[in-house]
């Protein structure tokens, strides 16, 4: 564990609330990154960052001194982000319905030849990718982001989501299959 983090936690528990500020400043960028990747939304990600550090402060007494604060706060952030997208699920359902529109798939099948069109297609690919991510369940999405984008192991994903490794592996597996199916029209176009 980072010696600075350890010292800051001891100071906080001894009554120096301001010491927690140092931890927030040090880890907020990382927490924002994972929060943004899971929520896919800047405003939601900022909410998640605040929520994660608030929860972290309240649970700080239960923090084990052998653990790594960055991993610990990262897991809390993943939980907060998962809660956020679960709450948002209704909205996501409507977006998935829009994404299944066959006309939209046709728009995605574009010629990559020309420069400006390539840029346009690049934007469409990003949009299609985001739609594909939105089609996943909150747990699948979180597991996929952690596995594919955050390079977390299945064990780490399981620990962060509070599920066993096998369930985490299955969540990643289902997410990959759904993503491939969803992005198949783009592959045909290229």
């Amino acid at each position, binding site marked *: 564990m980072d010696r600075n983090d350890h010292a800051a936690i001891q100071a906080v*528990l*001894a*009554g120096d*609330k301001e010491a927690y500020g140092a931890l927030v*400043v*040090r880890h907020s*960028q990382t927490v924002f990154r994972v929060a943004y990747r899971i929520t896919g939304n800047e405003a939601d990600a900022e909410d998640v960052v605040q929520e994660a550090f608030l929860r972290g402060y309240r649970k700080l007494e239960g923090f084990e001194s052998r653990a790594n604060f960055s991993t610990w706060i990262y897991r809390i952030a993943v939980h907060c982000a998962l809660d956020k997208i679960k709450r948002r699920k209704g909205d996501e359902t409507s977006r998935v319905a829009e994404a299944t529109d066959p006309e939209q798939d046709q728009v995605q099948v574009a010629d990559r030849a020309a420069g400006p069109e390539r840029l346009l297609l690049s934007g469409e690919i990003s949009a299609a990718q985001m739609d594909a991510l939105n089609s996943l369940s909150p747990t699948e999405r979180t597991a996929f982001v952690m596995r594919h984008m955050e390079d977390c192991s299945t064990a780490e994903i399981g620990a962060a989501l509070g599920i066993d490794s096998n369930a985490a592996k299955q969540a990643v597996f289902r997410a*990959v299959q759904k993503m491939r199916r969803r*992005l198949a029209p783009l592959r045909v176009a290229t």
Partner: protein
Amino acid sequence: MMHLTDEEMIQEYYGESENPAAVERHLAACPECARNFAELKRDLADVSRIEAPARDAGYGERVWAAIAPALPDYARQERRKWNGSNWGTRWWTNPWTRGLSYAAACALLAACAFYAGSVWQQQRHPGITAIKQAPAPQPKQPIVLVVLDDHLDRSERFLVQLKHADMESGQTAWPLGDEARSLLAANRVCRKNLAATSDPELSTALDHLDSLLAEAANAPGGLNAASIAKLQDEMNADGLLFEVRVLRTRMAHPNENPAKGGTI
């Protein structure tokens, strides 16, 4: 030859195969699995990492400024906890406050038992509950009505006795005089209570009854054949017995004459 499953290939792609050497050997030997694995790699490689928008160097400070006011001081929390337990100890060791606590606990227990009993009874007799929850519409002045009905009943019996009184027998005269005095007092109470009602028939009947009873109760030298005969004449002239019977019938069936039945 057994092909690799999608799950095994995904595990291989993310470097988490349980037996990576065996998977690699299979991929080298099986063109179909090798082609599928190549497609998987290409598909997943196309899924780019979502790049989070950059946060400036002051972002962490802003987060801290936003959450700091909501965070309690750990030392203060500890102090509050300690103070709380000390206060609790003092409370419990004081005999007065301890007694008060016992009394409060007993009162709470009794209230809970009462509540549980009422809930239990409601569950056992839901019909009673329903009646309690939705009481039938009550007529105005229900207690007065009961008293009045009783008074009219007694008055009717008195009038019947008076009508058939044996004028030669002093035996009937004495109880009639006593009953007349008793009824006179009751009649005045009823008249007073019903003074505000707008039922002229009832008021008239009670007025007639009052004068008859007053005469019977205050007959000089008590009731005798002459006074009884006079009372019978007055009663018959006013049709008082009939009036009282009509009123009793009306009270027993108030809905049959809605214009008058519910006004008492």
